[in-house]
């Protein structure tokens, strides 16, 4: 194989989310001479970002003073907070927990905010390359990380080179910053290779699904923030909703389900739709239309699951490391602070040594420590979880114990060991009808003639083992209906096989996380492919 072309930078950042952008901007603010680039797999900055999002603005004040006079599009101050316990038909107002008090915070579209940050980074001299996926890691001879390998373009599904073939280049740098967001595919390799999680609990996750609606005039109350727990979840499935009211008759609605759910028959996407069709919720959306929709995993392990974040030649920041505060469901301020801290640390220690300790001594970690027992408290069900959350909140996290986290895929029960609860789910009225109809609103596009980017190590397990043991849960947890078990035809007639509709994939990473056999590996498809979210 030919030697790949190489470009050199002082720092290469992988992923243009809030963590990567904040880091790159801070690096340039501290030393304008340093060459910095950001690689982003989405075709445009922000096009594969999906978040709530209500954000805490302090890191923005810190990073871009004056931003309040030049606000990102779709950004408004929170004016009102509500917290509800939903039943199947009614609701009860609960006191807003202190973590959910959003006074002083802002509702944003994180995608639009990143698209707004990117030109500010470019003005400082950062080179940003959207449409290019970091597909591999470049290691130096001594085993340290020396940069990234950009994915090849123009490879056919059978692995051959098409006429448009273009070999991906390598980007070399003394320091590589991985800010790939939740379950980054290179970060996953690094954690394994450098054994970064040997001293922490397994990481845990949730899956968030979201839609942005254009509603009938008068339905949106700009600045209103509402969260709920309860319906349609049973007490052993952790999850809750968010509804954020924007200007111009727009409302963002979403639902997050903990991926530690036990029921192999559970369908997170359907749970979101059930919630949306609750009699008190659906009135907001009747007569409206969906503008954009998608899904993304969210990192939930917090304090006790945070891996070591430094290794020779590289750092992990943001959700790729796992700095999100789950009780608040806020990760943006933590990701930005982590990115800035990394930049500041590199100013003093160009090799990154000591970053992990600096992070653990920082307010970022203090914030995680305080709430560390709240999420795992829900392993015992909703009610005990709420009582525990109350206790942990009153005591400010000073309990002398730290509850354990367990890998999500181990929480899934076998069909024969689990009696799915009676869900009494309703016939829905609001669109989209099904997951495929929903993918349409994510504007997902993948060149069809390329290798499948969902690598299943052994599909015999799917048919011979999983079908019996778990009933192929991938066909239910994937929000984009990528996995299907279909009848074989031709010679193999009568048999079944796994069909992977990879072109529908919205890059949420749920399958990589929840598959009970851990045989699904998500890798980057051709750069620029995947969802093209508008203002999610």
């Amino acid at each position, binding site marked *: 194989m030919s030697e790949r072309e190489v470009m050199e930078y002082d720092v290469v950042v992988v992923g243009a989310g809030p963590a990567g952008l904040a880091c790159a901007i801070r690096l340039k603010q501290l030393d304008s001479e340093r060459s910095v680039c950001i690689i982003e797999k989405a*075709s445009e900055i922000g096009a594969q970002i999906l978040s709530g999002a209500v954000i805490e603005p302090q890191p923005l004040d810190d990073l871009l003073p004056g931003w309040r006079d030049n606000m990102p599009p779709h950004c408004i101050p929170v004016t009102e907070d509500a917290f509800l316990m939903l039943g199947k038909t009614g609701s009860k107002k609960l006191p807003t927990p202190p973590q959910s008090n959003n006074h002083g915070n802002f509702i944003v579209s994180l995608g639009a905010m990143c698209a707004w940050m990117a030109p500010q980074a470019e003005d400082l001299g950062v080179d940003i390359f959207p449409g290019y996926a970091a597909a591999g890691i470049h290691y130096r001879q001594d085993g340290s990380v020396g940069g990234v390998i*950009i994915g090849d373009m123009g490879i056919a599904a059978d692995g051959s080179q098409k006429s448009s073939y*273009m070999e991906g280049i390598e980007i070399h740098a003394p320091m590589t910053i991985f800010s790939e967001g939740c379950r980054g595919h290179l970060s996953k390799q690094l954690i394994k290779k450098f054994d970064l999680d040997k001293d922490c609990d397994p990481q845990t996750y949730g899956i968030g699904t979201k839609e942005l609606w254009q509603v009938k005039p008068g339905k949106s109350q700009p600045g209103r923030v509402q969260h709920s727990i309860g319906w349609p979840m049973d007490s052993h499935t952790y999850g809750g909703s968010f509804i954020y009211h924007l200007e111009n008759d727009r409302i963002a609605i979403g639902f997050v389900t903990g991926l530690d759910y036990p029921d192999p028959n559970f369908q997170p996407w359907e749970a979101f739709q059930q919630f949306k069709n609750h009699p008190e919720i659906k009135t907001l959306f009747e007569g409206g239309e969906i503008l954009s929709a998608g899904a993304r995993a969210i990192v939930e392990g917090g304090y006790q699951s945070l891996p070591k974040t430094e290794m020779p030649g590289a750092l992990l920041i943001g959700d790729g490391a796992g700095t999100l505060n789950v009780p608040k469901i806020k990760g943006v301020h933590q990701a930005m602070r982590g990115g800035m801290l990394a930049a500041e640390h590199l100013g003093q220690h160009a090799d990154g040594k000591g970053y992990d300790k600096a992070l653990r001594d920082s307010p970022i970690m203090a914030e995680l420590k305080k709430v560390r027992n709240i999420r795992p408290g829900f392993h015992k069900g909703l009610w005990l979880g709420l009582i525990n959350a109350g206790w942990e909140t009153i005591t400010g996290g000073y309990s002398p114990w730290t509850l354990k986290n367990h890998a999500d895929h181990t929480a899934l029960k076998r069909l024969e060991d689990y009696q799915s609860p009676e869900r009494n789910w309703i016939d829905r009225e609001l669109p989209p009808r099904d997951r495929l109809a929903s993918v349409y609103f994510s504007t997902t596009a993948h060149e069809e003639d390329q290798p499948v980017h969902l690598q299943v190590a052994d599909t015999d397990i799917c048919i011979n083992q999983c079908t019996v043991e778990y009933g192929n849960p991938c066909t239910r947890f994937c929000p984009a209906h990528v996995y299907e078990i279909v009848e074989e035809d031709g010679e193999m007639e009568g048999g079944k096989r796994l069909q992977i509709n990879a072109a529908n994939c919205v890059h949420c990473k749920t399958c990589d996380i929840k598959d009970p056999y851990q045989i699904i590996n998500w890798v980057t498809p051709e750069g620029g492919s995947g969802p*093209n979210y508008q203002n999610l």
Partner: protein
Amino acid sequence: MKILVGIKRVVDYNVRVRVKPDGSGVDLDGAKMSINPFDEIALEEALRLREAGKAAEVIVVSIGPNACQQQLRTGLAMGADRAIQVDTEERLQPLAVARTFLAIAEKEQPGLFIVGKQAIDDDNSQTGQMLAALWNRPQATFASEVQVEGDTATVTREVDAGLETIEIDLPAVITTDLRLNEPRFVKLPDIMKAKRKPLEVIPLSDLGVANDNTLEIEHFAPPATREKGIMVDSAEALVTELKNRGLL
């Protein structure tokens, strides 16, 4: 020989376009914008002609506000030698675009002016033809193959009946069809090189082009939605339903 290539910034073909609730236009908020795909094919063809030694310089030109510099930079990264932005906030209609291209052609004296057969936003398919008429030069529209030899070009055109091959004298206008070529991917280092290539900004007013937009757009409306279908469970039920609707 110089080749001029017109490239237009349009909403990306993957984006689901939506009419604004008040019917005043198409909602492009947060939508991805790209080079019009047919123009990208035009640029690819120009680059291949240059690489084959048939042309010395490829110049991309776009008419629009500063945002279209993004597409010009992409064109430079693909390999164009330099770029011209004709700066205007106004949306020009095909005749005004053709007049503007003519002004640029008179200035640059190209041997070929290649444009897409149509832009995927308005789908007019008029600019190339109007430009040829104003310029008083031959045209070969809907090209699926282009060969240049000396002062002539042999162009295969996609026509209703199949393919037609014509020979035209240069300078000339060519408009490109989908099958002409497959545009290249941009290499990362070329994005950096593109930043250093010349991009000239000419205010539209400096070209003395009369902007006589002749059409007035009154209203945008989405196509009527289809009514929800019903499922019938037998042939009899189908017949009954069809009869009820007076279709049988």
